[in-house]
């Protein structure tokens, strides 16, 4: 299958969590171009000002400074250019309210960051298979 790899934007403020994702991607041979924004405001700037090519997938943390994930998601869904991007929430928040808000804004999935790296690797492997199924 000759698929062009879509761009992925990671919106995450914790530098170790960013390393987590990068490392898990590399271990799972995920070769998609990965861009990183430190919070919702930065992400919107990167997207609006076309600083980065438009991603098809956004991996979104919820608890971030300046603008949290849910606020970012609201704005994104009201933006013609951005509203159809697939969003996968990756967060430590196990709060029902966050899950409800995220699904109400039509995220494609809500994933809890596990404590161990090994578990995270497995989740990312599953994510990769899913993305390949959707031809991303």
């Amino acid at each position, binding site marked *: 299958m000759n698929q062009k790899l879509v761009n992925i934007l990671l919106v995450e403020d914790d530098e170790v969590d960013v390393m987590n994702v990068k490392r898990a991607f590399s271990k799972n041979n995920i070769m998609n171009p990965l861009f990183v924004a430190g919070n919702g405001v930065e992400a919107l700037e990167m997207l609006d000002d076309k600083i980065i090519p438009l991603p098809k997938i956004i991996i979104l943390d919820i608890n971030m400074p300046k603008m949290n994930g849910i606020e970012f998601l609201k704005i994104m869904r009201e933006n013609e250019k951005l509203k159809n991007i697939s969003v996968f929430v990756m967060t430590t928040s196990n709060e029902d309210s966050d899950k409800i808000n995220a699904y109400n804004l039509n995220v494609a999935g809500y994933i809890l960051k596990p*404590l161990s790296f090994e578990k995270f690797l497995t989740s990312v492997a599953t994510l990769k298979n899913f993305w390949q199924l959707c031809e991303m």
Partner: protein
Amino acid sequence: MEESEKKCQEELVALKKEFEEFIYIVSHDIKSPMRAISNITTWIEEDLGSVVNQDVLTNLGLLKNRVKRLENMMNALLELSRVERTELEFYELNIPKMISNCIALFDDTAHVDFQFKADLQQENCFTLGLKMQKVIMSVLDNAIRFNHEENRLVFVDVIENENDYEIKISDNGPGIPEQAIHKIFSIFYTVNSKDELDTTGAGLAISCKIMKLVGGKLEYAPGLSSGSVFTINWPKIITLKN
């Protein structure tokens, strides 16, 4: 007089709420750097490869183990803070059935024999089912976990009093040394070193908090010749102070 009493009561409620929120925020926010430590340790292990000093590997293993303990303690604190905030649904419960189900959850545990007796007129009770289950599971877990006998025995006897159900859980384990008895309900206290047993020591603390919430009792007494006897008095009628 009434005015100041009312004010005291309001302050108490506010203080309790603040305490619950404090525990929640602390344990919730601390999880992030903890996860980072655990992950980075794994990466160091991986990056070191196969040719590495055994001591280094052992120490990294210890590091991960201690972080896991931290995680267990955080989860215990979170659970403690949630006792009065979650799973407060009342529903109709068949007490003997519920206890049998709890016992069945230990089916996979080797070398344990349960003897369950329930002598009840009113088997059904409209109560905080999940909380009751939690307490019984904690005490049952303790009865097994610290028992190193070849053949472990756990006796569960339930009788009905006028206003409550009395559930006695006894075991043929080592019992609790006298100097430790008053400490066992404190959070994180374990009689033995945590290096020997992988447990946070929070089960009884959480159970105690639940018993306070429902207006019941959880007490320890040494067994006749040896072992422990935990008695749970679960009230038939529960009024939640809100």
